[in-house]
C-alpha cells in the first residue's frame, strides 16, 4: 500500500501510530489484534511492525553489516544459532549477503536502506513501513529498494506501507491511500485514484507523467485497455493496440 499526501497531511504521524511509537489520543490501532495502547503489547507490536526511515545514514548502528542486522534479534534474547540463521535469511532476501562483512558507511544509499530493511526482517515482522525510505536515493538505489519491496510482498507475504511523495512509486502499489488534513481523503487502486486528477490537485498531489499521458491518449480516442498508470502498463496497452491495428 502506498500512503501519499501533502507535507503536513499526517502520513508520518499515522505511520508512528502503527507501531506504537505514538499512541493515538483517541481511537485505537490494532496490530494482529494487539492494541497499541496496551503498554504490555508495545514490544510485540514493534516486533511485528518495522519501520525504515528516510535518511540511510541515521539507521545503521554497528560497524559491520551482519552485526547491524543481528542487533534486533540479539535484543530479543534469541540463541546465537537462531540469530545467525535469521541474519543470513534476512540478508539473502534483500540481496546483501555478499556484503555481510562490509562496513555500512561504505555502502551506497540503496544498499544501506536494504541493510536497514534486513535488520527489520530479522525480527520476522508481518508489516514494514517505509517512511520516505527512497527519498534520498539515486535512481539505482530507488530501484533496488522498490525491487526488494516487491519481493517482500510477493514472496514473503509481508505487508508494506510505502510513504512517498513520488507518485510514480505510488503507481506500482496495489492500493493508494491519500491523506489530507489528518483524514483519509481518497483511497483505491492506482487506476481509481489517478482517475480523479482534480481532487488530487486540490490535495496538492499530481499524477505521474505516465498517468497524465495515458489519460490524454484515451481522451484523444485511443482505446487503451486496463489500467495505464505505470510505464509497463502503458507500454503493454500501446503494444496491444498496435498489434490489433495490424491484424
Amino acid at each position, binding site marked *: 500500500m502506498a500512503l501519499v499526501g501533502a507535507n503536513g497531511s499526517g502520513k508520518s504521524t499515522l505511520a508512528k501510530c502503527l507501531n506504537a511509537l505514538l499512541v493515538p489520543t483517541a481511537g485505537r490501532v490494532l496490530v494482529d489484534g494487539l492494541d497499541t495502547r496496551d503498554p504490555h503489547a508495545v514490544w510485540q507490536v514493534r516486533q511485528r511492525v518495522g519501520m525504515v526511515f528516510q535518511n540511510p545514514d541515521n539507521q545503521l548502528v554497528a560497524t559491520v553489516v551482519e552485526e547491524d542486522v543481528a542487533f534486533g534479534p540479539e535484543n530479543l534474547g534469541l540463541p546465537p544459532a537462531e540469530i545467525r540463521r535469521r541474519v543470513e535469511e534476512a540478508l539473502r532476501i534483500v540481496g546483501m549477503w555478499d556484503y555481510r562483512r562490509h562496513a555500512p558507511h561504505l555502502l551506497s544509499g540503496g544498499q544501506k536502506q536494504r541493510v536497514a530493511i534486513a535488520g527489520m526482517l530479522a525480527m520476522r515482522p508481518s508489516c514494514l513501513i517505509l517512511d520516505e525510505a527512497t*527519498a534520498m536515493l539515486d535512481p539505482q538505489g530507488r530501484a533496488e529498494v522498490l525491487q526488494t519491496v516487491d519481493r517482500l510482498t510477493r514472496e514473503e507475504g509481508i505487508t508494506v506501507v510505502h510513504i512517498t511523495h513520488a507518485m510514480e512509486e505510488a503507481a506500482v502499489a496495489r492500493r493508494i491511500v491519500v491523506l489530507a488534513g489528518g483524514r483519509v481523503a481518497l483511497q483505491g487502486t492506482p487506476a481509481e485514484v489517478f482517475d480523479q486528477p482534480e481532487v488530487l490537485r486540490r490535495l496538492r498531489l*499530481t499524477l505521474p507523467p*505516465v498517468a497524465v*499521458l495515458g489519460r490524454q491518449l484515451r481522451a484523444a480516442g485511443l482505446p487503451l485497455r486496463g489500467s495505464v498508470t505505470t510505464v509497463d502498463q502503458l507500454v503493454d496497452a500501446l503494444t496491444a493496440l498496435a498489434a490489433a491495428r495490424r491484424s
Partner: protein
Amino acid sequence: MIEVRDVHHVYLRDSPLEATALRGITLTIGDGERVGLIGPTGSGKSTLVQTLNALIRPTDGTVLVDGEDIFAPQADRRRVRQKVALLFQYAEQQLFEESVARDVAFGPRNLGLPEGEVQARVREALLAVGLDPDRFGPRSPFTLSGGEMRRVALAGVLAMSPRVLILDEPTAGLDPQGKAEFLRLILRLHAERRLTIILISHSMDEIAQVVERVVVLDEGRVVMDGPTRQIFARAEELERLHLGIPQTAQILHRLRARGLPVRTDLLSVEETRAELLRVLRPA
C-alpha cells in the same frame, strides 16, 4: 561564465580515509545556461558544485568565474560566493533567525550594505519566491510549511543578487505540488533575471523539465555532456551508469524496441502524446 579546467579533488589525502572525488573535470558553463548535473551517488556532483563557489579548494586544477581564477591568492572569494550562490540540500534546516525577514537579511547585511538597501533586497527576494513580505516577513520561519521554508532559504540566497544559482536536490522532500511550484519558480527566475541555473537532481523527469543541457558525472569524470534531448536519447549508456531516463522517454524507447516506429528523442508529455497519436491514430 564559469570555466573548470582539469579539476581534481582528493578528500583526506595521505590518510587511511583518502577518497578521490574528482578526476580531471573540464567544463565551461555560459551565462544564462540551464545545466543539469546528474550521476550516481558518489560520482562527485556535490563536490564539483562546491568548487564552483570556492567552498572547496580542489587539490588540483583551476576554476575561473568571469575570467578570474577564484583560488588565486588575491581572489576575493566572498565576492565569488555572492556571485555564484549555492542552495544546499534541505536548505531549510539552515534557517535560524527569529523572523523570515531577518533570516533573508542575514546575507546582504553581512555584505555591509546600508540598511535601506538590505530591506529593499529582502522584500524583493521574498516577492521573487512568491511569499508576501508583509505577511511572511515578521513570522518565525519555524511556523511555516516545508515548502515555504525552502522558499525562504532560496530568498536568502537571491538576496545576495547572484548571477549563478546552483541548486542541490532542491525539491527533495517536498510534496508533489510543492515540487512542481518550486520547478516553475526556478524557470521563472531564469527567465526574469537571466540567472545561470545549475541543477543537481536524481529525478530525470525534473531534469528534463528544467534544463537545456545535461552533464553526466561518473566516478569523478564528465562522461556525457550535451543537449538534454540528445543525452536522454542515449538510454542504454545511462542505464549502464545506473541512471534512468524520464518516464515519457522510457515509454518511447520500449515501444521502439517492440517494433513501433516512434521517435525516442522526445521529453515532454505533450510531445510524447503527439508522437504516439501520429503513429497510432486510426487511419
